[in-house]
């Protein structure tokens, strides 16, 4: 995650508190999604950005994990096509790993 976005997320977490925030990912790959999830939970794993060593412990989900909360019409229009081409199970499993560690 780029440094500017890390700074923005850190500022939002400090201002509003983790209980009011949720991070939703749309990554195409499990590894990239996992890195983003790790950054907003246990801190920047590359130790390059403002979240290095900062454990925000924000609740984080990939949009694929939230299908049961989205109306089927909108899901079909916005998400379902990418379900066919991406490794949905791997992405969900990777993001859930960081959520459980929290």
């Amino acid at each position, binding site marked *: 995650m780029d440094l500017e*976005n890390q700074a923005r997320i850190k500022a939002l977490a400090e201002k509003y508190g983790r209980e009011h925030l*949720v991070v*939703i990912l749309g*990554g*195409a790959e499990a590894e*990239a999604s996992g890195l*983003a999830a790790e950054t907003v939970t246990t801190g920047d794993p590359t130790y390059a950005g403002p979240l290095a060593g900062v454990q925000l412990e924000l609740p984080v989900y990939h*949009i694929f994990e939230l299908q049961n909360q989205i109306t089927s019409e909108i899901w079909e229009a916005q998400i379902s096509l990418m379900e066919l081409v991406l490794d949905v199970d791997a992405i969900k499993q990777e993001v859930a790993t960081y959520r459980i560690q929290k």
Partner: protein
Amino acid sequence: MIDLKGKKAIVLGDRDGLPGPAIGECLVSAGAELFFLQPNVLSELRQEPWT
């Protein structure tokens, strides 16, 4: 599973996966408040090959 209703959602989309606006539309329908929307942030994690 988290209840999205009333949550302030930070959306990190991916132009090669699910773009931010598409995720945002889903979240609004579930009652979340779009708080920060970055369409392409995850794509920036990948390194481009040298040319």
